[in-house]
């Protein structure tokens, strides 16, 4: 494996960080962040084979700050001591990084455009190498103070951008040549093309994009906040404009501590109820609590679906996972109808199916968790299921193949739900505190309690339905 390819995951962050340091120093020196543990770790891990020259960021620092180091060459070593230690929020940092990346991309575009015409492109290093603004715009200003600066930035940038950078470095290391635009321009041109053509370059770009779009660490169930953030506009649109979700009784969800939300599952090829329930609690609840919903097993057999649901906050429905979530004091949503609920036909809409074997009751009894019944009205018309084909189940790994008015007919477009008006109602909390944890083994009791909860959700659904005048407008 090549060095740069490996580097780009971790080292890119380091580069970004240095650059962010550089720009911040230029604009608002107080906002600078000195220590972010993780990135510091990565930068030290990379150090042995990283660029030995001072990076552009540190050089910028040395121009602005007091000259504490013996020279520019020592700037890298004294970087740590030079940086103020005022903390900034991660969001602020992220914004800076994104801003810088945008600037970088812009400069790269400019560089490529400019190198086509020799006059303008004379000052650029390789077309793809991000150039510090000072050296790009005012070459002579940057020039006098640091003849090594050019070398350093070219070297640093070259190694991170995945090129060997030898051709890009030579013109910059000789200050006199840079005064003659024509000569330098012709020297640059060949370095440009191979870099753009090499697969390394695209590989590196792709790697960087990929890392930017994911969080540093997913949580232990695979939820990736960055991934959710990326789809947030879509969910916002679905929540506010498309389904126009209305929420009633959100206050019945406790502000803290474990709680189990039990709801009716909507039929159809793609159930949006878990996702919208999560969105509803996140937006409407006074504490903006995070809700995790339990998803059926079969989702995890399917490519894309399982991974996507997982990154968005779904957790596979099983006792172990639910218990672990609840004992961590999380808010968990469960649809006890399960697959039976998803595969409800249109004519059975809002008729709650059997509640499995009452696993959620056992869970609640064992962990002493209060239940909040929940009715989701409107979701069951969004993907009206007319028929289910159950012959291909083994082959495809899905419990049934749905037939909706538009599904196989319009292809993937048929999976788009209808814009029904949704209403989510939360009922009064149900406590099972009078039974001990041993009651979880009493099958009769579990079955009775399960039926009781089912009836209360059914009543809640019926009540909400009675108050609804139109499927589309509520």
């Amino acid at each position, binding site marked *: *494996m*090549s*060095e740069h*390819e*490996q*580097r*780009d*995951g*971790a080292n890119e962050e380091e580069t970004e960080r240095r650059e962010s340091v550089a720009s911040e120093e230029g604009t608002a020196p107080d906002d600078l962040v000195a220590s972010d543990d993780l990135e510091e*770790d*990565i930068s030290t*891990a*990379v150090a*042995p*084979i990283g660029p030995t020259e001072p990076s552009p960021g540190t050089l910028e620092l040395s121009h602005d700050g007091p000259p504490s180091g013996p020279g520019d060459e020592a700037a890298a070593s004294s970087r740590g001591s030079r940086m103020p230690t005022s903390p900034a929020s991660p969001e602020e940092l992220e914004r800076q990084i994104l801003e810088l990346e945008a600037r970088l991309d812009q400069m790269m575009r400019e560089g490529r455009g400019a190198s086509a015409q020799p006059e303008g492109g004379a000052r650029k290093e390789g077309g793809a190498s991000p150039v510090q603004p000072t050296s790009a715009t005012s070459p002579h200003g940057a020039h006098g103070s640091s003849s090594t600066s050019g070398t350093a930035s070219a070297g640093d940038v070259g190694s991170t951008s995945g090129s060997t950078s030898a051709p890009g470095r030579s013109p910059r290391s000789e200050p006199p040549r840079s005064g003659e635009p024509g000569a330098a321009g012709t020297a640059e041109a060949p370095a440009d093309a191979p870099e753009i053509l090499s697969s390394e370059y695209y*590989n590196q770009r792709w*790697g960087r994009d*990929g*890392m930017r779009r*994911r969080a540093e*660490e*997913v949580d*232990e*169930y*695979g939820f*990736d906040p960055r991934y959710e953030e990326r789809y947030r506009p879509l969910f916002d649109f679905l929540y506010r404009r498309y389904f126009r979700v209305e929420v009633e009784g959100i206050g019945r969800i406790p502000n803290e501590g474990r709680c189990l939300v039990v709801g009716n599952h909507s039929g159809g090829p793609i159930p949006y109820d878990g996702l919208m329930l999560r969105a509803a609690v996140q937006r409407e609840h006074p504490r903006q609590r995070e809700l995790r919903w339990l998803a059926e*097993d*079969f989702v*995890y*057999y*399917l*490519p*894309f*679906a*399982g*991974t996507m649901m997982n*990154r968005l906050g779904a*957790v*596979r429905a*099983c*006792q*172990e*996972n639910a218990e*672990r979530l609840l004992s961590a004091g999380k808010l968990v949503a469960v649809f006890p109808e399960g697959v039976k609920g998803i595969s409800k036909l249109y004519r059975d809409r809002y008729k709650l199916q059997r509640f499995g074997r009452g696993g959620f009751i056992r869970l609640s009894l064992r962990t002493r968790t209060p239940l909040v019944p929940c009715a989701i009205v409107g979701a069951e018309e969004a993907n009206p299921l007319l028929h289910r084909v159950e012959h291909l189940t083994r082959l495809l790994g899905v419990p049934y193949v749905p037939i909706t008015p538009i599904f196989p007919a319009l292809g993937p477009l048929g999976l788009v739900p209808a814009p029904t008006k949704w209403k989510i109602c939360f009922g009064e909390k149900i406590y099972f505190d009078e039974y001990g944890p041993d009651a979880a083994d009493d099958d009769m009791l579990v079955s009775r309690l399960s039926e009781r909860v089912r009836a209360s959700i059914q009543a809640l659904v019926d009540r909400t339905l009675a108050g609804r005048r139109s499927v589309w407008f509520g």
Partner: protein
Amino acid sequence: MASRSSKPPAPGSSPPPSPGTSTDRPTRGRVVALTGAAAFLGRNLLGLLEEDPRIARIVAFDIKTPETAGPKTRVVSVDLTSPSSEQRLAEALVEEQVDTLVHLCFLSSPTHATAWAHELESIGTMHILNAARRVNLRKLVMWSQTILYGAHPTNPNFLTEKHPLRADSEEHYFADKMAAEREVNAFSVKSKGTIVTILRTAPLLGPTVHNYVTRYLSQRAAFTLLGFDPLWQFLHEVDALAAFKLAIDRDVPGTFNIVGDGVLPLSTVARMAGLSSVPVLHTLAGPLIGALWTVQAAATPPSFLRYLRYICVADGTKAAQTMGFRPMYSTREALSDYIGAQRLRDAQLLSDPPA
């Protein structure tokens, strides 16, 4: 690591061993035997035990001499695949009055020599247990792995020790290890006097360890399954050694998952390792990897593809509570430590670890 184990079973009152002369061998202190002593875990554990003053003698069973063998170590050349090994093992165990046997003789990567691997792992474990039955063994520590739980879509996110081992039993690599673990469990039921500890480690990663995971990650491009991105978990090699040391020092009967904190999606692992992932349709991947494995071009047989598809992550709570084991490296740190060493190796600043 050693200092953390506060309660030595035998007080370390014996004088530090003077190297060289066998007559000076301390008679007090514990005697630990290792099988598979020349492989990664055995070799490094041997080094740790050599430095521990509470350990009087070490007996190293392997077919070759571990280079970490010091003055306290007696190397006994035993080939577990031969039927006479049982006798040799028993003789050595009696002669040295071994009280703790650490069974590490398992392959860290799948091999094409499945018949030999079966003799070594499954039958070899039987030989070891038979030898152990003949002597009065105080403790048996065995190495197992969390991949034996198997990757299934029905797995909970965190598998506990109570979960059955459900790895693909068609695959020899898993089947032999599961058989070995079954035998050890049967042994622990029958021989009441012996403390039996089984440590199931997550896939090991670190600067010097060598196994199928490092081989997968050191590729330039590797297969992944289209649309699947399971969570992975690693254990740093140093943590693995610390766990074995802890199991030798303390008496903790039972089975324990030894895992690093945190999980990483496979795609992030690939990105961090600079791996270009080649997504393959999962229905095609099996035959493809099978063909590549047959011609010895793939690091693993097709049965390992499940781990690219489904989750197999274990819960280390029991080890933390009962054994007092806490990993020093998280999954992510173990991975970046491996990547750092791999980079140095690529730049030829670091030599390859001994296989």
